[in-house]
């Protein structure tokens, strides 16, 4: 018998060894020579919570690129601070409209990571990439007459009234790639979508670590020792020598990784994280509720082509029937804030017309919801539910992507509070793809959704809500107006806002106020709560995290679009733990 066990043990050992070596050789793609025996933990910032699924490379235009592609590797002409509501001059010392021309003054002394100077021609090259119809800013390029680089300045002239808002928004979102590297590679629209050089050249504070990159696990960045912003004294030089961003795992694993000090910064929504903050194990932007800065508005999206959701009175009654505070406190444990009736994010608070909110806003009241429906002529059936005006039964379906547990809980709370007001809603379970396709094609009554992140201008929010025309072929509604709300007046106002010069503040205020009023009167979407910029950090290796009580009031997320806000400032202000 002993012999059997000895053989078993030997066999176990041998096979385990073979397996390990096998995995080493293939899966990990071992490099033969590396200057390091591992990235020293105390010089490395480890982040996670931005990358869903494999990392596809560093294409900055078409999504799915490595976290930090824009922000760490490639930079933008301006940045935008959503807390202060200000643009931050970056690769451009200034970029703004002068009359109906757009003038970009390139900052002298900016260098690419290969040491060459960054100049006006580089800016023009990147603006001109929008000529390809697969570029996200192609619609703006269609209105461009000329892009003229001269000295340190790039001047853009337009065929007709410029898209003032969209241009300004583009300035802090369009990445500047290296023309010497990109020009030979991007020769047509298709090649723009596949561009991902092995050793990308950027202007950013970090460079891409090709040896460390593992598409299923992580992206690694090495500090750019000659980063222009540190040399010019525009920004502190970041202390982490390496940044490693890990692909998302599960919520449990993420939480454990934060607590074990595997990750320094995590940007996943971790339910119940407030108890860890209260016990001092984890840090967040605010020490108390709501703990997080707001990132986007979660709303209930009614399909306005379906009866009775095509009736604004019914939508308003439905909005009044929903107990949002219950969702905020019980579902989210106060990790989120209830939304303003206008749905405008706190970053846009200066645009909120308080008198309009007072006049047209809504607040939770079951009795009021019942009274509104009764006054509008809706009658209840024998089971106590309201019926359509033509006497047919109302039973609305409400769906959220299956497995999004916080939204599933919110859905159930919406259903029960609507029930109290006599509105019958039934949960419909759909996996994400079905949910999305049904939403895009209008095959739903109600969905919970959140589409537009914080930005420099509420136009991005209005454009999403009121966009016309409604598309019924090809993609259906991909990014806009899923509720199929048709209001030509509102859509004209959105376009007018885009065509209003930024100096014309009175007109901008007025348009925003009108759009808010329409939203609150008509409720094409029913604002519910503000999702947070989920960010939890630990001070095991790095300190000086952003907080509401310090001077470091920055957006603490690595998500796409946030590093070029003030996410990069989070990194440049970190200090190694003493």
């Amino acid at each position, binding site marked *: 018998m002993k012999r*059997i066990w000895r053989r*078993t043990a030997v*066999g*176990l050992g041998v*096979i385990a060894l*073979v*397996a*390990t070596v*096998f*995995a*080493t*050789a293939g*899966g*990990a793609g*071992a490099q033969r*020579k*590396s200057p390091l*025996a*591992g*990235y020293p933990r105390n010089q490395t910032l*480890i982040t996670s919570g931005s990358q869903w699924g*494999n990392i*596809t490379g560093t294409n900055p235009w078409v*999504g*799915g690129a490595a976290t930090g592609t824009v922000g760490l590797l490639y930079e933008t002409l301006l940045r935008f601070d959503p807390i202060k509501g200000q643009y931050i001059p970056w690769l451009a010392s200034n970029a703004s409209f002068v009359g109906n021309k757009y003038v970009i003054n390139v900052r002298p002394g900016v260098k690419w990571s290969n040491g060459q100077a960054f100049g006006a021609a580089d800016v023009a090259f990147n603006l001109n990439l929008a000529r390809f*119809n*697969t*570029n*996200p800013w*192609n*619609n703006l390029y269609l209105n461009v007459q000329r892009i003229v680089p001269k000295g340190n300045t790039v001047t853009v002239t337009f065929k007709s009234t410029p898209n003032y808002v*969209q241009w300004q928004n583009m300035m802090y*979102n369009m990445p500047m790639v290296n023309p010497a590297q990109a020009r030979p590679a991007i020769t047509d629209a*298709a090649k723009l*979508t*596949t561009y*991902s050089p092995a050793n990308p050249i950027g202007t950013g504070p970090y460079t891409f670590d090709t040896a460390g990159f*593992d*598409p299923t*696990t*992580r992206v690694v960045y090495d500090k750019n020792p000659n980063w222009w912003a540190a040399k010019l004294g525009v920004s502190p030089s970041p202390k982490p020598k390496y940044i490693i961003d890990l692909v998302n*795992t*599960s919520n*449990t*694993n993420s939480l*454990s*990784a934060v607590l*074990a000090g595997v990750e320094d910064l995590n940007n996943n929504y971790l339910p119940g994280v407030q108890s860890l903050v209260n016990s001092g194990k984890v840090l967040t932007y605010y020490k108390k509720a709501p703990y997080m800065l707001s990132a986007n508005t979660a709303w209930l999206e009614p399909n306005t082509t379906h009866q009775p959701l095509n009736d604004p009175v019914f939508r308003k009654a439905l909005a009044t029937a929903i107990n949002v505070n219950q969702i905020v406190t019980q579902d989210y444990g106060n990790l989120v804030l209830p939304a303003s009736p206008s749905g405008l994010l706190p970053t846009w608070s200066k645009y909120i017309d308080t008198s309009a909110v007072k006049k047209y806003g809504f607040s939770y009241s079951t009795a009021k919801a019942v009274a509104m429906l009764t006054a509008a002529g809706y009658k209840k059936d024998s089971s106590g539910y309201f019926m359509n005006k033509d006497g047919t039964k109302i039973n609305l379906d409400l769906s959220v992507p299956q497995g999004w547990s916080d939204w599933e809980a919110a859905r159930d709370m919406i259903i029960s509070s609507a029930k109290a007001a006599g509105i019958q809603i039934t949960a419909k379970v759909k*996996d*994400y*793809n*079905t949910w*999305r*396709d049904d939403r895009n094609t209008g095959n739903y009554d109600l969905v919970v959704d959140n589409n537009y992140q914080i930005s420099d201008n509420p136009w*991005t929010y209005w454009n999403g809500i009121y966009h016309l025309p409604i*598309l019924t072929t*090809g*993609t*259906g509604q*991909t990014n806009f107006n899923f509720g199929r709300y048709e209001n030509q007046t509102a859509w004209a106002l959105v376009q007018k806002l885009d065509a209003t010069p930024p100096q014309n503040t009175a007109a901008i205020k007025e348009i925003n106020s009108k759009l808010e009023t329409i939203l609150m009167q008509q409720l094409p979407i029913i604002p519910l709560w503000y999702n947070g910029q989920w960010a939890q950090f630990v001070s095991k290796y790095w300190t000086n995290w952003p907080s509401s009580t310090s001077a470091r009031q920055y957006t603490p997320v690595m998500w796409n679009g946030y590093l070029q806000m003030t996410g990069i400032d989070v990194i440049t202000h970190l200090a190694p733990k003493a």
Partner: protein
Amino acid sequence: MRGYFLRKLGIYAVTFVVAVTVDWAIPHLMPGNPVLTLVGRIQVQDPRVAQNLYHHYMRAFNLDLPLWKQYWYFWVSLFHGDLGTSILQFPTPVTTIILHALPYTLGLLIPATLLSWYAGNKFGALAARRKTLDNTLLPFGYALTATPYMWLAILLSWVFAVVWHVFPVGFAYDPTATREWSWAFVSSLAYHWFLPFLSLFLVAFGGWAIGMRNLIIYELEADYAHYLEALGAPQRLIRKYAFRNALLPQITGLALTLGAVIAGALVTEIVFSYPGLGYQIYRAITNEDYFVIQGIFLFIIIGVLIANFVVDIVYIIVDPRTRIGMQGSGS
């Protein structure tokens, strides 16, 4: 003998064509359009751009063609060794994804399957002879094999990784490791490998042990065993024969398990965030990544067919009755 192999090969060829056709058809018949995911994640402010991107990707993936043409191109590409391009991870080729993930899965499942088979059979055989083992450890085997695998994996991960921090919570190696031929890296790989391996090993071990124990008891009650006993053969010899006979169904079982080994790691890899093929299939299915689904299942199909073929050969070697049967049919 030649006729036997030709016949077998013919059956395998037909099976291959049918299986690959089903493999192609299932993802294509799934509801939903994966290109919308791709377009949806690009931040655009104008639907015209979204439409451009949509048409661009539909063309790039040949999804704008009629289904019969897509099917035809699929076979043409297959014979050129091209499994297509991932939709979700555009423009990564499917073969790159598979080759990257395959070693992790094989490194996990081959040892777990072989070791559990070997150890489980030995233990089962032993248990059949020893009352004490049969009464003490075997119930443990029953418990293991009856445990829902997912539950066991989550339990192990929770206890050892999340609560006690004895093992890491995910990935195939430490995030700060540099990938090189060094002791540090290899030990990091082994450290991350152990817990998913253990979970697979434990469940399979229980199954094999119980199977073998029951088979041995059955064989010891067979006529030939009693006959040998009556002839005065030593117990050891009888047990040896019983073990050999009992091993045959277990070999078939092993072959089938090995064939499906690639898909077997699905739950393990999700629970332990282990970047193998199972994890890739899961991601691909939830995102309707047609070509990755097809590519990975193609590997499984080929794996099962090869494993079956190997078993046919192994059977000829280990079971003399098969050889005699073939000679009989040949004469």
